[in-house]
């Protein structure tokens, strides 16, 4: 594999968990909720996937990830949508809670030096024919099978959001929930379902990290991906296809480090590690004024 192909492969690999999480968050934000607790869903998903995959089945692991993410999202939904506490502080607290809880459970269940523990990982599956496309065939179609699930989910979410009544209701709820309620549609219930979907996707993102990439759990291994995913939603302008593209661009920018390392440039590795976060900042500044958020994002209209 050439350095360029390795770079593309790295881009898709880095983008996969981010795209899962960001796609879920897109649906959440389109219905007017901002879930900063996404980071918590990812780390919970990573831990849940790690525990469930310990049974020996990678797909059981993925289900475990999704369930863990849904549980975290359910807590968020109860506190913000039912009790109507502030979404941003609740989300932050839930992220901190999950980061602490997973670290604690991991130490408790596997001991502080559980580093040697590993679980079955998802091998790369090559898609026949497509993999032989020059340049990007290997990058796109020689990936763990969960990546192909993502390829299917992205257009499905797009179609669902723009071509179904349910999708219309979601988008309308994000713009003006009172109008939605006046039309006889239970806006809050829609928000709950969207948040749960976002949690499942965040959980799967964590599962991808553990089961398809690292093959092990580490404390805080979500490493801010939940927050990066939220930035990606903004960069992708709250549109499922845009978000998927933004995730890929982001993955490509992060994968530049493999490219530079392959070239043997003497740049300190910490600079590469800091790169995704700096890129997020630059990306957010660059999109300024061009992106329009859902009108009632983050608050219910009767709240001041």
């Amino acid at each position, binding site marked *: 594999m050439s350095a360029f192909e390795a770079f593309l492969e790295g881009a898709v690999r880095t983008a996969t968990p981010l795209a899962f999480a960001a796609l879920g968050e897109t649906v959440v934000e389109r219905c007017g909720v901002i879930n*900063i607790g996404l980071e918590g869903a990812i780390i919970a998903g990573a831990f849940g996937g790690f525990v469930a995959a310990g049974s020996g089945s990678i797909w059981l692991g993925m289900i475990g990830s999704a369930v863990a993410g849904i549980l975290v999202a359910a807590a968020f939904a109860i506190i913000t949508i039912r009790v109507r*506490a*502030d979404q941003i502080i609740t989300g*932050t607290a839930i992220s901190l809670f999950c980061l602490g809880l997973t*670290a604690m459970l991991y130490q408790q269940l596997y001991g502080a030096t559980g580093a040697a523990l590993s679980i079955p990982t998802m091998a790369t599956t090559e898609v026949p024919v497509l993999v032989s496309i020059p340049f990007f065939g290997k990058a796109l179609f020689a990936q763990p099978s969960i990546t192909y699930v993502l390829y299917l989910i992205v257009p499905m979410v797009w179609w669902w959001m723009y071509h179904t009544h349910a999708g219309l209701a979601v988008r309308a709820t994000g713009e003006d929930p009172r109008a939605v309620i006046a039309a006889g549609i239970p806006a809050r219930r829609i928000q709950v379902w969207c948040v749960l979907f976002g949690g499942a996707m965040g959980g799967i993102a964590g599962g991808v990290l553990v089961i398809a990439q690292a093959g092990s759990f580490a404390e805080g291994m979500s490493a801010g991906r939940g927050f990066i995913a*939220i930035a990606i939603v903004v960069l992708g302008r709250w549109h499922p296809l845009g978000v998927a593209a933004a995730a890929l661009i982001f993955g490509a920018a992060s994968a530049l480090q493999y490219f530079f390392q392959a070239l043997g440039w003497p740049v*300190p590795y*910490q600079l590469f590690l800091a790169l995704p*976060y700096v890129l997020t*900042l630059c990306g957010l500044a660059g999109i300024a004024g061009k992106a329009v958020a859902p009108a009632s994002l983050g608050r219910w209209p009767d709240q001041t």
Partner: protein
Amino acid sequence: MGAELALVTDALVRATPLMITGLAVALAFRGGVFNIGAEGQLLVGAIAATAVTLAGHSILGRGVVFVALGAAAVAGGFWAAIAAELRRRFHVLEIISTIMLNFVAIHLVSFLVRGPLQEPTHIYPQTESLPAMARLPILIPGSRLHFGFALGVLTAFALSWMFRRTAIGFRIRSVGASPLAAFTAGRIDVSRNSFLVFLCSGALAGIAGGIEVTGVTFALYENLSPGYGYTAIAVALIAGLNPLGIIASGIFFGTLETGASALQREFAVPSSLASVVEAALIIAVLTLTAVRNRRVLERAS
């Protein structure tokens, strides 16, 4: 010195950065700025204090501590200014930008202690130890309790006075309560106000980092902060963003964390228990407040 005194003073030592970053968070939140970046601002404050001390102690002598803390404030303010400017000019959500800057700061420390600021033998990933004269004075002889704790308490009183008694404090609270009302009824320059609040919040968190280096660790290294800047959110919220309350909640969390470390040593209970308890407390306080607000609203209507 008795073992009890050591336990108490250790808790207060631990409470110091929590208290000061808690005040930083409260200042920001009161002013309508969601500064989740106290962690990063604390770290760059620690970097600046260390660098200034190591470079300037031979020239400045005893006064280097003040210069170091000043540098820490400037560095923390600068780190916050990045997010503040992104918010003012580009409407970037400060929650996202400050968290990104936290990660950048962590990697910056990691780079510096293995690169330009590494101790002369180049074995350990940390800086040279700060000379004794550049350290903060000790409050209670024989203990580790340093002057920074007193500084934190003083800051809390100063902020409390500012919020209650001064026009600046009123402006900050007005913008935090309702930017639109502050602008229309009070002719307050909301964006400038938020920018300055953000800067001051960052400067405070930076000072916390400077104090940690000159009062406790005496060197810069990775994992200098076990997440003080994040715990600060719990510290501030539990106190209802009240500066005087933060003295109490800071000490409470300081005790909780030293207790958790002791539990880990003695009984192998994971020390992350403390962060779980903290986050659970934030959630509990949030939920209770929201429930109470709803009751009030329902009664009013």
